[in-house]
């Protein structure tokens, strides 16, 4: 039953480019980027309970590292994206090492600060980043094709999700959930809670770097909007509305919200306001999100 469902979803995902026009294919590609962002953010926020606001910033690290390497160094995007992923991971390790022991609100504030610092640096170092004008960078393929990009994003997203799933099902994933459930009980059961949280933070940051690198080479124009807080809150809303702490939640939330935001685009930035409000209501009344609601309805039948 579950297998059949997954196979069905996979089949639809493969057939998508043959049914959507160029515009909606673009939306599908972007939603895959958000699937990666929301899922990896869920890894720290949903599974180990650390609300980081630096996730979009790490995507920015990935995008600018890979973009600038390609533009100024002639490095192939495939290598550049790997470099961006690694740098995001290293920065995540450093930032995590600084603030993970503090935990809670302090972690949130420190990551918020980091995010803003990074955005300001990118905006102001105009000679390298061209600031808010955006930096034009080469794409992954020599011939531009949305279908190619779609399959690239799909392949990376699937690999990404399989990897995450395996991580969560491993001893490390078990330790993640133990720390989320009860940090004191976990530590007196032999779990090194600081190391576990640092691992989650580092791997999640690296994943954001990977998503950001790909995203940049798809758009071929990177701007300080990628590491912005607006972007961060969109990812947060996707994870919260979809269902934090569940595997499917952020995936569903990302796709649903990205497609929805295309319909309400005419209202400009107000769609963020709407998502913020919906996320608030969901967090208050259905903390396990759409996935949790669905399970509740299913069980009642």
């Amino acid at each position, binding site marked *: 039953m579950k297998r059949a469902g997954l196979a069905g979803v996979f089949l639809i995902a493969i057939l998508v480019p043959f049914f959507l026009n160029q515009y909606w294919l673009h939306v599908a590609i972007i939603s895959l980027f958000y699937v990666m962002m929301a899922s990896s953010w869920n890894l720290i926020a949903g599974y180990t309970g650390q609300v980081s606001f630096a996730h979009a910033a790490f995507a920015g690290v990935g995008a600018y590292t890979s973009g600038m390497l390609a533009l100024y160094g002639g490095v192939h995007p495939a290598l550049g994206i790997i470099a961006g992923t690694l740098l995001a991971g290293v920065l995540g390790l450093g930032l995590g090492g600084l603030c993970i022991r503090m935990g809670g609100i302090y972690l949130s504030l420190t990551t918020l600060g980091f995010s803003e610092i990074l955005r300001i640096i990118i905006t102001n170092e105009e000679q390298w980043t061209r600031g808010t004008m955006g930096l034009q960078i080469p794409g992954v393929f020599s011939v531009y094709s949305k279908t190619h990009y779609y399959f690239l994003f799909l392949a990376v997203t699937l690999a990404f999700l399989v990897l995450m799933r395996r991580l969560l099902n491993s001893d490390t994933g078990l*330790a993640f*959930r133990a720390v989320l459930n009860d940090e*004191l009980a976990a530590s007196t*059961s*032999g779990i090194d809670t600081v190391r576990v949280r640092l691992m989650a933070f580092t791997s999640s940051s690296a994943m954001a770097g990977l998503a950001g690198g790909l995203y940049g080479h798809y758009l071929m124009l990177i701007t300080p909007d990628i590491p912005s807080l607006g972007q961060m809150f969109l990812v947060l809303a996707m994870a919260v509305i979809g269902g934090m702490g569940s595997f499917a939640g952020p995936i569903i939330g990302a796709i649903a919200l990205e497609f929805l935001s295309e319909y309400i685009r005419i209202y400009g930035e107000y769609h963020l306001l709407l998502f913020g409000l919906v996320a608030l209501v969901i967090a208050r009344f259905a903390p396990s999100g759409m996935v949790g609601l669905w399970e509740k309805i299913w069980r009642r039948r």
Partner: protein
Amino acid sequence: MKPVLEGRDVSRSFGGLMALHRVSFQLFEGEIVGLIGPNGSGKTTLFNAITGVFPPQEGEILLDGKPISRLKPFQICRMGIGRTFQIVRPFLKMTCLENVLVGIVGKDEKGTSREERVEQALLELEFVGLGGQSHRLAGSLTLLQKKMLELARALATRPRVLLLDEVLAGLNPSEILQALHMIEAIRVKRKVTIFWVEHVMGAIMTACQRIIVLDQGRKIAEGPPDEVRSNPRVIEAYLGGADA
């Protein structure tokens, strides 16, 4: 004979409050020692000091002669000290099996496969009488079952010393009897030395060979149950003296 667990002049204060004042104790292999005292006398604080949750500010705690008071809780657990909590703390949103697996993973024994670990976890559940419950969420268990699950999780870390913090509190008489059998089984079959805080006096007095009494952070008495029961300082601490 050398003690398994030893505390030397352990002190801990919170702000201006002296929660533990130069408390010394010794536990020998295979012993079951009771720790009693009025509310706020420092029993749980002593357990927190031993497990590294709130390490002692002065004094030394030794396990098998090795100092452990500078170590982190997870290191102390891996050295061989397990504990349960006064207010039960199983991982509520995880299954019974996963709860016990955390203890096994926490002990961090290299080279065991996932299957072997699951098998070991199931044996621990069986041991504490939660055999058929492995896939139930811990949050849906009864209080007695939660306490047993916590015991299984602690046993999964293969402790040499187990600290029990009021395992009998909130249980009805027949459950108390079950829990007592379990504790005795842990001591005898698993060869675990037990340090046990309890308010259910009848139970602890019959089960323990030796009792340590704390009052206002100080050790005021130690000895066999009968001796402790008739000790005037203990009676005063519990019933209140002339100056109280």
